[in-house]
């Protein structure tokens, strides 16, 4: 029962190491390095990297910017609550508000074009989850996160909340169109 007893050899650190262990450690170490360098590699050559462009923002300030965008680019409204559907031009700054328990406004984007998507939360923390694409981004109150997105497939997408935000959390779902 020796792992639960003091090492039988007082000078245990001089005990030779078995080949099985040395070879495995070498292989495992190489694999660890491969995994480590995959991340910078993808920053250089990959097309899916989360931006870290972030600003501190007050909810009113962000709501104003969103309202301006809505006034300019709304093409129609949907649902009983008349949520505006916004069709911004390519390359535009697009503002998406997360609040209890809705996403506002709705977006209609063009395939293959890039947009600067601004995300913030008005109250609690929320989670931006784009389905079925499965892109998930944390949304924090007080922080404006700017992510450049380039939709690559046309269709109707859902944006749901995947950060628990109170009793109506599971009702926080919206749509996003790509044409």
């Amino acid at each position: 029962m020796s792992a639960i007893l003091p090492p039988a050899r007082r000078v245990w650190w001089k005990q030779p190491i078995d080949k099985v262990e040395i070879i495995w450690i070498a292989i495992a170490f190489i694999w660890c390095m491969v995994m480590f360098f995959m991340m910078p590699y993808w920053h250089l050559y990959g097309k899916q990297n989360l931006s870290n462009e972030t600003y501190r923002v007050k909810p009113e300030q962000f709501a104003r910017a969103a309202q301006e965008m809505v006034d300019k680019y709304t093409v129609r409204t949907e649902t009983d609550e008349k949520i505006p559907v916004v069709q911004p031009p390519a390359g535009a700054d697009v503002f998406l508000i997360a609040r209890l328990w809705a996403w506002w406004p709705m977006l209609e984007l063009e395939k293959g074009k890039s947009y600067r998507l601004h995300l913030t939360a008005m109250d609690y923390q929320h989670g931006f989850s784009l389905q079925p694409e499965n892109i998930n981004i944390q949304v924090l109150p007080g922080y404006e996160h700017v992510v450049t997105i380039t939709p690559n497939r046309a269709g109707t997408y859902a944006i749901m909340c995947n950060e628990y935000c109170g009793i109506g959390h599971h009702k926080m779902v919206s749509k996003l169109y790509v044409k």
Partner: protein
Amino acid sequence: MTTTAMFRVCPRTGLQFHKSAETLIKLNAVAAVVALLVGGVLALLITLTRWQAIHLVNAENFYLYLTAHGLDMLAVWIIFFEIAVLYFCSSTLLRCRLATPRLAWLAFALMAIGTITFNAAVFTGNATVMFTSYVPLPGHPAFYLGLILFAVGALIGCFIFLGTLVVAKAEKTYEGSIPLVTFGALTACIIAIFTIASGAIILIPTFLWSVGYVKTIDPLMYRTIWWAFGHSSQQINVSAHVAVWYAIAAIVFGAKPMSERVSRTAFVLYICFLQLASAHHLLSDPGLSVEWKVFNTSYAMYLAVLASMIHGLTVPGSIEVAQRAKGLNKGLFEWLRKAPWGNPVFSGMIISLFGFGFLGGISGVMMGTEQLNMLIHNTIYVPGHFHATVVIGTTLAFMALTYFLLPTLFNREVILPGLAKWQPYLFGGGMAVFCLAMMGAGTLGVPRRHWDITFAGTALPYEFPGSAILMMAIMGAAGVVAIVGGAIYVGITVGTLLIGKKLDAGTYSSTRTVLKMPSGAALAGHGGHGGGFAAPGTFVFALVFLGAFVLYYFVNWKYLSTVWGLS
């Protein structure tokens, strides 16, 4: 103090128990099992709610039960059991008295009062804030206060462990270095102190915020520091259950570590690098630089992953060496085929090891990769991963250890041995399917902590693919199987304590017995032979593991390359 200390030697194992330590180990272990019972009942209600066809409890109760389940399992069950393991690994393995037993009682009392306090806040509906209690989601002050009390109690327990190491050294109760298992426990203890300090740094201001003395808590700061507590506490579990694996290999097989140097170095890597992994939770957050994310999420170039890969080889490797020494030398796998698969101490430990590595380890590294994290952040993949690490890994290892402790510590014969034999398979197997189904559903985008993925009653519902709903049903069914396995464990443990046949406990005396080393030990001091190739079967498993790891890792990069461009 030494002269009044009371010791007994277990007639079956030769382990020596100090009376105060023995009582406290029992007390902490029993408190742990009570928490497991509560958490298990909640687990059943939760899993039957997320199984969309059953959808058992209403939204309010679902979120409440989920909060309580997280706390009572992840904090209360595991940490109470870990305190018991710490006392065992110091006082019992080093054959010395426990330092300051009175303070250990205080630690226990604080942890118990803390547990009752935050549970009261949750169950009265005043703190449905999840385990993470992200600000500014408000919880009742009693919630934070309870957590702080619990943490202070656990911290005292850690220092009693360290104190006991000092006592053992001063009173010369052992020769040379502390045993490897105690070294692993020391690793867990060091990580625990760091972890609890982080918890205090964030929970104390949050408590003050909840009572109105502090105006705001920055949500990003909260997340950064909270995860230094929340993630690191899982690293305590990793260190603790790896120590338990080594202990069980030694107890069941008489296995010696293949190399003390390698295993101890791997534990030191844990101390140096594991804590950086709190960054795993912040990869999809705004406001943190890419460099910060990449360096921290990879534990500074995956050196803690390296450590786990080493333990994953050396624990079964030491078993293989011990088995081969007994003549089970045929082919690559006779040593494993002829292992005592009917002994729950062994089967629980080996399922824990394989489940932790294959399911928990691979998924954890995938989701901890900076860019890949976007694919699964806050989906049900995340609980799929950590149920593999903390439930199959830690909980099952602790269950396996319990089957050893019942006769030696509690001096009772385990009741229903036929059922005990099956328990690890039921629990581990159920949990494995449960985790895989969650990971599958998460890959399809199903969110975690979500009451209704059909979005009934909303204006703009999203319809998940049928496969996602099916995965959630498989998860529910497998979850029920695992809960039955857990219930059998609780039933056997409690039943054994109450009606198990009493065994000879040995008698207490004030003299300490000195450990007699077998005379051959000095000559054959280690398991590995140095320069040989002592564990070829284990090496084959390691290569299979690596193959699965590499494949799964790159499949996910491929998946990432097909989603929308992000920059």
